[in-house]
């Protein structure tokens, strides 16, 4: 399935000699720009690897496949498909044939059971687009201090795309939703290799009926790449990517809370500790709640941390900001450790669910290290925190980023 793979480079010492296909080319910049506070093992086991249809991405794990988008691709507000991150819980990932693919809609909360081909969905329902950030709940988990187990992501377990498809609510309404319906659950065609719970996720009915929730077939004007869910995936703008089920095969309308492991046990956060506005009441239990919307955050894309700049020379700092759908109100920066903040210039607005580009012009005259902090604030007035809100699974890392520019 991914036989045509190229290992671009490895800087892994004793491992590097084991296979002739591994090219030693020093540390490529994509790996060199990883956050310095990732666990040592996460840095040494990372490689720049090309899988089918993708540019070289940062390999976190081979199987199940987890590949991170290198920082440089966030210089554009829309993330290109071939650089978009890859994240799976299951290692058995079928190559779905679009002609054979069918989507089943059923469940005790549906008035009927139905099955649709790709062509039927596309012909019968209005096609819509939404630009939205797809962000792994555990993005930046590797930067948690103290570290927590899981995929040790840097900042690139996310991407922003223009998703095209049909509204989930149009499909649900065509089948019929009973008044007792509570949640809608989603199952993809991927499964565990030998054992383990199937990756099934649910969302509240009210969320499923929002106009922006899509069954998407297209990504940036092209069919979904295999590794991003071909031929159809769920798109839940504003909510973390755990709900964006790939290779979508089955939808169940439920009158009872889903009992899936990935709802009851996985992807949960302590209740009342995060500034969350969208609740998932039917799944709240025991002081925890499923993760819901994406936390407000930002990322400095250029320059790299530690860059050297001649005193008096101009520098444009560029980055992106995003949140869970309120939209970005402002991005600010501080050069004095957070005592005072000034506004960054916001760039093109692709909608409230999209990355929002920003830039800052600097021309520092004083020689020495210059610490730059950047924070985003959304239209609800929620800003990035200074301190990490710790939680066992390492979700919602959105603390204010700080880089140092060496003015020489």
């Amino acid at each position, binding site marked *: 399935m991914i036989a045509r793979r190229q290992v671009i480079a490895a800087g892994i010492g004793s491992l590097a000699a084991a296979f002739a296909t591994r090219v030693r080319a020093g540390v490529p910049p994509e790996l060199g720009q990883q956050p310095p506070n990732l666990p040592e093992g996460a840095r040494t086991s990372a490689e720049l690897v090309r899988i089918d249809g993708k540019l070289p991405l940062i390999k976190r794990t081979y199987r199940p496949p987890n590949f991170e988008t290198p920082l440089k691709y966030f210089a554009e507000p829309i993330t290109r498909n071939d650089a978009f991150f890859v994240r799976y819980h299951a290692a058995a990932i079928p190559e779905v044939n679009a002609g054979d693919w069918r989507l089943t809609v059923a469940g005790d909360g549906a008035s009927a059971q139905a099955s649709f081909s790709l062509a039927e969905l596309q012909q019968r329902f209005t096609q819509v687009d939404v630009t939205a950030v797809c962000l792994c709940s555990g993005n930046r988990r590797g930067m948690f201090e103290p570290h927590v187990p899981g995929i040790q992501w840097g900042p690139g377990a996310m991407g922003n795309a223009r998703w095209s498809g049909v509204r989930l609510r149009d499909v649900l309404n065509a089948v019929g939703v009973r008044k007792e319906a509570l949640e809608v659950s989603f199952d993809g065609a991927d499964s*565990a290799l030998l054992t383990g719970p199937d990756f099934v996720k649910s969302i509240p009915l009210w969320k499923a009926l929002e106009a922006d929730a899509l069954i998407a077939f297209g990504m940036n004007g092209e069919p979904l790449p295999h590794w991003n869910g071909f031929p159809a995936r769920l798109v839940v703008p504003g909510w973390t990517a755990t709900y964006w089920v790939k290779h979508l095969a089955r939808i169940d309308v439920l009158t009872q809370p889903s009992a899936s492991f990935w709802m009851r046990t996985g992807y949960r956060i302590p209740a009342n500790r995060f500034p969350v506005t969208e609740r998932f009441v039917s799944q709240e239990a025991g002081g925890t709640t499923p993760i819901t919307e994406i936390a407000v955050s930002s990322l400095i894309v250029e320059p790299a941390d530690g860059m050297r700049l001649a005193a008096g020379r101009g520098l444009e700092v560029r980055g992106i900001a995003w949140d869970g759908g309120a939209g970005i109100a402002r991005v600010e920066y501080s050069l004095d450790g957070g005592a005072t903040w000034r506004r960054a210039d916001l760039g093109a607005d692709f909608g409230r669910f999209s990355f929002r580009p920003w830039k800052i012009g600097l021309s520092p005259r004083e020689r020495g290290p210059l610490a730059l902090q950047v924070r985003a604030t959304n239209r609800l007035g929620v800003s990035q925190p200074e301190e990490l809100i710790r939680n066992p699974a390492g979700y919602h890392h959105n603390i204010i980023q700080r880089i140092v520019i060496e003015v020489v």
Partner: protein
Amino acid sequence: MRKRSAVASLIVIALAAATIGPVHAEESAVVLKDAPGRDTVQANCLACHSADYIVMNSPFLDGKGWRASVTKMINVMGAPITAADAEEIIRYLTANYGVTPRP
């Protein structure tokens, strides 16, 4: 050679798994530290996931942390690991991929 036999056994696992799902050939380049218990780790853990899951999550878990991870694999993920093997796996992971003791 110890290293070569480890790689060979990984390939055997990979071929066995290939009948069930896709396996990335290059993952067998991820070689775990050669120490007592490695064969048990490879025989039990690598049927379902690549070895980089272990390396990536190091070195910050203590014995308790690795025990929790192995227990999760058995109880939640359904890994068919015997109690004796589980103890050997936890010992290997703690000794080779555990948190570095501070002086």
